[in-house]
C-alpha cells in the first residue's frame, strides 16, 4: 500500500486550484448583481424601503442561521473524514444536507406566501431583483444538494483511509457549499437588513 502523507499545515490550495476558477467567477458575477441592486435602489429609495418591509425578516434570519450551521457541518465533515473518522463525517454530511433541505423548504414557503399576497416578480423592481437574485442563489443551493448527495454516496465506502481523489472531491464539494453560504450572507444583508 502506497501511503502519501499530506501535511494539512503546508500552504496548498484547498480542494484543487481548479475549483477556485469556479468560485472566483461566481463571486465576480454575484458582485455585479449586488451592484445592480444598489444602483436600482438608489434610483427609487422609497420602493426599495417599502419592499424590504414586506419581506419576512425572521424567515430570512432563520435561513441565514440554517445555512451557517450547514456550512459548519460540511467543514466538520471534511475535518473528520480527512482524519479517518468517516462514520462521524457522514453524520455531519447528513446534517449539512438537512440544513440545505430546510433552506429550500423555508425559501419555497417564503416565496409562496409573498406570491399569494400579490408580491410576485412583476410587482415592482424590488421584487423583480429579489426573485432574480434569490432565484439564482436557489439554483446554486439545488446544485449544492446534488453535490452533497454525491459526497454522501462517495463516503459510504470509506472506512479509515481516504484516497487523494476522494479528498479532492470532498474538499471541492465543501468549498462549493461554503460559496453558497457566503453568497447568501450578502443577499440577506441587501434584501432583509438594509433599510
Amino acid at each position: 500500500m502506497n501511503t502519501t502523507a499530506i501535511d494539512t499545515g503546508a500552504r496548498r490550495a484547498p480542494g484543487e486550484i481548479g475549483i477556485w476558477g469556479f468560485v472566483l467567477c461566481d463571486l465576480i458575477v454575484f458582485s455585479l448583481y449586488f451592484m445592480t441592486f444598489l444602483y436600482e435602489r438608489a434610483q427609487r429609495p422609497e420602493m426599495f424601503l417599502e419592499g424590504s418591509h414586506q419581506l419576512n425578516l425572521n424567515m430570512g434570519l432563520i435561513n441565514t442561521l440554517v445555512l451557517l450551521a450547514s456550512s459548519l457541518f460540511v467543514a466538520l465533515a471534511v475535518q473528520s473524514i480527512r482524519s479517518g473518522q468517516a462514520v462521524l463525517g457522514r453524520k455531519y454530511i447528513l446534517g449539512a444536507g438537512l440544513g440545505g433541505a430546510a433552506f429550500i423548504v423555508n425559501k419555497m414557503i417564503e416565496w409562496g406566501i409573498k406570491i399569494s399576497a400579490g408580491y410576485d416578480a412583476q410587482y415592482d423592481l424590488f421584487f423583480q431583483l429579489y426573485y432574480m437574485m434569490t432565484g439564482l442563489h436557489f439554483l446554486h443551493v439545488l446544485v449544492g444538494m446534488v453535490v452533497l448527495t454525491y459526497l454522501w454516496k462517495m463516503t459510504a465506502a470509506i472506512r479509515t483511509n481516504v484516497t487523494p481523489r476522494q479528498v479532492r472531491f470532498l474538499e471541492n464539494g465543501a468549498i462549493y457549499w461554503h460559496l453558497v453560504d457566503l453568497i447568501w450572507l450578502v443577499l440577506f444583508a441587501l434584501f432583509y437588513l438594509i433599510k
Partner: protein
Amino acid sequence: MSTVALSKGEDHTKSLIQVWTALVVLTLLSWWFRDHGLGPDAAVAAILFISFVKVYLVGHSFMELKFAPSWLRHSFTAWCSLSCLLLITLAFVL
C-alpha cells in the same frame, strides 16, 4: 492502492466552532443594528461591512483559505474588500 494519511494532531474542530459562533454573533449583531443604535446611513454601512467580515471569515476558515497559497488568499481578500468598498460607496454616492 494509494491512500492519504493526514498528519494527525491538527484538529481544527475547535477553531471551526469558534468561527461559527462569531458568524452567528455577527449575524445577530447586524440584525440588531437594523433597528437600533445607529442612524439609517450608518446602519447601512455597518450592515454591509459586517456581512463582508462574515464572508471573509467563511472564506478564511471554512474554505480553508488560511492554508492556501498567498496569491489565492490575497485574491479572495481583495474581492471582499473591493466589493465591500464598492457596495458601500454605491449605497451612499448614488
